[in-house]
Each structure stands twice: as C-alpha cells, then as structure tokens.
C-alpha cells in the first residue's frame, strides 16, 4: 500500500486554507415569528461563522416578513455554505448574497447605509469645531444644550467611522449605530 498522494489530472483539493476571506453582505427574508433571529444567529455561532454587522426589522407588515441584513466574512466556500445553511431554516424565505449580485450587475458592492447617533460634550473651541465638522459631514443636530450635541449621521460605514474618529478628541461621549442596511442598485428586488 504505497501512498501515491501526488494527484494528477482532474484532482480536486480543498482550497479552504489558501482561499482568501471576503466580506459579503447577505439579505435574508424571514417570517417574523418568535425565535427567528435566534435561529439565524445561532447558526452563525454554532457553525463558527462571523457576523460583522446585523440589522433586522419587519419590512412587510401584512405578510409579517422581516428582512435581516448581515455582513459576514469567509472564503467563497464558507460563504456558499452560509447561504445554504441559512436556506435550511424553516421560516427563511430567501437568502441573497448582495455582494455577488452587485458583481453580476457590474457594481463594486451593493448600496450600504448606516445611521449613527454621536454624542459630543465640551465647550469653547472644541464645541465650535465639532459643529463645523458635523456640518461638513452633513450630520444633523438632534439634541443639544450648552454643554453637548447629539449628531445624527447617515452614510456609508467608512464615513461614519471617519466621523466618529474625528469627534473623539472633541469630547466624544457615546455612539450608537444601527448596523448596515443594504440593497442593490437598479429596478429589480432581492
């Protein structure tokens, strides 16, 4: 029994170790029923998948459908598994890898937006600078007194990250973010 493991011809090797992980955004349409989010999240934790961002809300009230948006990381093989495993969940209607669809449509990525509330406290020059920068970032003031602002900012994740980083030395107190909402360009639905 001499092992001749050097494969030739149509050899198929698992490329799991060598393939590079990619970040993809998934849209998952589910029945809005008790436990449905736990099923989705439990699948990710149970099978060792990553969640970078998660957003969920009921989007079609009359049908009780919710749309879950998940940003996840994995090799193409793992991403395919995630989609297939999600589709096994009984109350899951559809799973669409928005990143893949965006590629098919000729775009870099799907449209992605996030909302953040950013609380900044301070006085003097810092306070003036914070307000000036907020205007430049098109952030709205949604609460303020003489000692603080709460800004509402919407946009791409990178923009929000940048805004928060800039506010840090200007008296950043706390941040709350919604996670990413996403869909693809063009007239077609998911």
């Amino acid at each position: 029994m001499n092992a001749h493991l050097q494969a030739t011809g149509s050899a198929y090797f698992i490329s799991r170790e060598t393939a590079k992980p990619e970040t993809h955004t998934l849209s998952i349409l589910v029945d809005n029923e008790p436990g449905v989010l736990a099923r989705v999240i439990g699948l990710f934790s149970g099978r060792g998948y990553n969640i970078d961002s998660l957003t969920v809300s009921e989007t079609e009230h009359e049908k009780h459908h919710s749309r879950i948006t998940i940003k996840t990381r994995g090799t193409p093989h793992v991403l395919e598994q995630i989609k297939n495993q999600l589709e096994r969940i009984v109350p899951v209607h559809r799973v669409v890898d928005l990143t893949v669809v965006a590629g098919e449509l000729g775009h870099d990525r799907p449209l992605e937006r996030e909302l953040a509330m950013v609380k900044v406290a301070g006085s003097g020059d810092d306070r003036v600078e914070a307000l000036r920068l907020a205007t430049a970032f098109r952030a709205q003031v949604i609460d303020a007194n003489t000692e603080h602002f709460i800004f509402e900012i919407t946009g791409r994740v990178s923009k929000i990250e940048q805004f928060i980083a800039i506010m840090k030395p200007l008296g950043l107190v706390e941040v709350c973010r919604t996670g990413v909402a996403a869909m693809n360009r063009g007239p077609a639905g998911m």
Partner: protein
Amino acid sequence: MSKEHTETGRREMTGAEMVVQALKDNGVKHVFGYPGGAVLPIYDELFQQEAVEHILVRHEQGAGHAAEGYARSTGKCGVMLVTSGPGATNAVTPLQDALMDSIPLVCISGQVPTTLIGSDAFQECDTVGITRPCTKHNWLVKDVNQLASVLHEAFIVATTGRPGPVVVDVPKDVQFAKGIYTPPQTAPRISYHPKVDGDADAIRRAVELMAGAKKPVIYSGGGVVNSGPEASHLLRELVELTGFPITSTLMGLGAYPASGKNWLGMLGMHGSYEANMAMHDCDVMLCVGARFDDRITGRLDAFSPFSRKIHIDIDPSSINKNVPVDVPIIGDVGHVLEDMVRLWRASAKTDKKGLQAWWEQIARWRARDSFAYTKNKDVIMPQYAIQRLYEATKGRDVYITTEVGQHQMWAAQHFGFEQPNRWMTSGGLGTMGYGLPAALGVQIAHPDALVIDIAGDASVQMTIQEMSSAVQHEAPIKIFILNNQYMGMVRQWQQLLHGNRLSHSYTEAMPDFVKLAEAYGGHGIRCDKPSELDDAIAEMISVKKPVLFDCRVAALANCFPMIPSGKAHNEMLLPDEATDEAIANAIDTKGRELV
C-alpha cells in the same frame, strides 16, 4: 358540535384533546414517552382512547431512541412525548442523534403554564432554546387556536425534504384551554419547499459522465434508505444496468444487498479494502444520498484525487460542504434515480468489456480479504460471534440495531444486509446506548420479527433500564452483548494515540448480565466457548421474551481494517499488517489532533 364544523373537521376541544386528535389525524399508532406534571392533561387524554398506543419507557432518552428505531424500520415518523424541564433535556441526545442521521421524529413536550414561563418555575427549562440547534425546527405554542396547525406542520417538516426531528412545546395551560381544532392541510408554509425533482440537465450530464467511465464506483448512503423502498429498488436497477461496483456508508447498508455481485462492502474508516481502494482510484464517483462525512473520506486533500464526482442529495447544504463535486444534483434520491435509470436505458450502453480491467483490479484488492481475523478454538472472536449470529438468522425476518463502538463496526462488516430498513445504528452522533431502546421501538413496530441489538458491554449499560420497558410491553428483543470488559473502541484509540495507556477504558465490577436479565424478568444466557455458541444463539432466538446474551469474547481484539486519522483511503491498516509497532506508528502527530 355544529354540522358545518364536523364537515370541515373543525371543532372545539381542549389543547390536550387536540394533541391526541392530531396524532390520530397524522396516522400515528404508537407514542414513546414518560409522564410528568406538565404533560398530565395529554396523558389523561391518552388514557381515554385506544387508537394511539403509548409505550412507557424508563428514561426519556430511551423514548427518543425507541421512536428513532420505530421510524427507521418503518419509514414512518417516530413520536415521543415528554414532560417539561428534565423530560425535555433528557430528550436532547436522541433529538441530536435524529438530526445527524436524518430520522423523522416528532417530540411533544409539556411546558410550565405560559404565565410562569421565565419565572424559573418548577421543572421549567427553555425547551425551544435548548432544542433549537438539535432540531430541524421547533415551536412553543402559546395560543391553543394555533396548536392544531402547528402539530400538523410539525409532521410535515419532520417527514419531508431531508427528514429530521422537531419539537412542539405545549404549556400546561394551553393543554387545558379550549379552542378550535383544524384538520391537517396539504399546503405547507410558503417558506418551506424542499426540492424533490433533480435538474434534468444535471442528470443528463451525470449519465454522460457515467457512460464514459472506465473505473466507476457508486457510493450510496442513508439517503437511499430514507427515500423509501422504491429508491433502493431503483439503486439496484441502476447497478444492474451499469455494471458498476457499489459501496455504502454505515447508514446505507441494506439498500443494495450484501449478496449482490457488485457489492464491495462498507467503505470508510473501518470499511473494506476493496471499497476504499475503489473510492481512491476511481475515475467517476456517483454519490447517492451520502454526505462525505469525515469517517468516510479520510484525509480530504487525498480523497479520491482522480475522479469526477456526481452528488445526489436532497439538502443543498450537503453539496460541496466537505468535498467539491463536478455534477451536483439536488433532489430526492428516489426521483433522481428514476430519471437516471430512464435516461441510461434510453441513451447509454453498458460497456461490460470496458469495465473488465477495473473489475479485475477490484478482485485483486478483494483477495486481500481485509475483514479476515485469526480464528481461535478456545476463545470466541467477536467477528466469529457476528458471523455465527448472521448464519443463524439468515432467511428470517430479522432487524439489527447496534450500540456504538467496535461491536458496531464488526456488525457492519460481518452481518450481511439484504434489505433496507433492517439496520438501525447511530452513525452521525455515535450515541452509546442507542441500540437497546431502538430495538424496543423496532419490535413495537414489527411484533413478530426477530429484533437483535448487537451491543457492547459498555454501551448497553447506558440505557439498560429499558429492559424493563421491553418486559412490560412483551417485546422479545435480543440483546447480544459482545462482552470484552473494555470500552473496546476507546481502548483501540488509546493504543493508537496514547502509548497504550488504557485510561479508564476497562470496566471493573461488570454486572452479572444473566442475573440482571432475570432481575428484569427477562432471560439471561452466557457463552464463552466457540463450540457452544451456535446452541446458545439458537436458545436466544427461541426464547419468547427479552434476552440478555452475555457473549464473552476475546478481550483484546481490535477492529481492522482501519484508515487511521489523517491518512488517505489507500493508506489503510490491514489486519495482517497491524503489528504492535504498526499500530503505535499508525497516526502521526498531525493526525492525532484529528482523531
């Protein structure tokens, strides 16, 4: 009850009545269970009717495995009934077992009243939370008017697509509450629609690949058994038409008969040399209802490196999960095989001559006689015991269950299965203690059949209390214990991996199984001489009550052939090569982490 109501089947009843009515409406004849505070209303309803028979077990785990054995041997859905808290947590092992082996199982559990949920009430646990990852789906029913439709849906989800276990958790106040019962409806929920018909184009490409194969092999699995008797019939027809050799996973034994001329024996870690070598060297592999489990593939990067692979599976997530395939076909095995057979008949011709060289090669591998062992006049070799049991039961209506360990592998190697649904074993989860309660479930479904649990002395003690259930329900199951006083498979791995340091794998203070059988009201037999074995087996078969057969076998026999962890199919350790040194060096450091 108004006239309209009876015509549509809708009528008012309590939640507990609905449970029993739903069981009847879904064709359930037997329920395995154990009562407790939170299911008393359902038990009260069971008491007042005769259509559904309740089989009382001694532990909820036993109820689950019995329901699994019942399901696997009949093709029907198994049903278990447990109480809240510990009743539900004890059900977790069989639920996970059924999930991994794709067994249709409906578990109905009691729950504390809705008003007490979340208050840490007596015998409360988060049943849907605990069982979420070990079921195909589960429900907590808080509204009695939803109970009937949930129960019907539970049966649909459990039995269709890739079968699996489901849990319906029913709080006690919902069992008492009155509501409207609705009969089963055919339309399932919109989000659940398993695909049963394979893509015609993919099937055509598969047939083309198969027709051009010079070194083909068919690798079938439990999916063929799950798909129903017709699928096994079609598989046999396909093998006959193509002239291809066929091997099977542990779960798929019996779909193709062991006496069939194209049979290579089981494949995988303890499979036959010819099956594993054929898998390694083949040029076209047809995987039918199996899932490339790690016990089957061995080292993944050296798994069947020269072949084009076709994979038929009803679960899309099985495709490309462990092994990339060239032609995936998603659908029910029975449906796909039907199309495949039709297409082969219409378009492809079997090239018997072209396959001749391949069959000659297989014959050379087969000549290695990889299941061989050294016979002994004084001590019963475990393999010999299985062979004698097989000879003694040939031609009878026999069902075999097993526990988990060496005895399980020896049973798979040396017992020949001619029909599907005759072999019940815990494959995916590897649950010691599965076989005895599973045998009970099989015997309840087939009262006149010969049902034998091939057991190990360690495994059998995990659920031995179900002897009492077997006696109570007059189920004459035969527990054939290959008693070597070791957890044999654990010891074998300790010899392979841990320098022969046998840490806690030897069972001291073994019970006297003969006296134990008698204590339960069963029949005990002991045999330790090869010359007396046949008579003892004959006695076991003839006794009309549960039997514990203490078959004393060679203590240190190990299970070969074997693909050590981290090795490929063509690096099997064969019995005649398994010297102490070979065993000690069989697994390298990297393989040790894999187990």
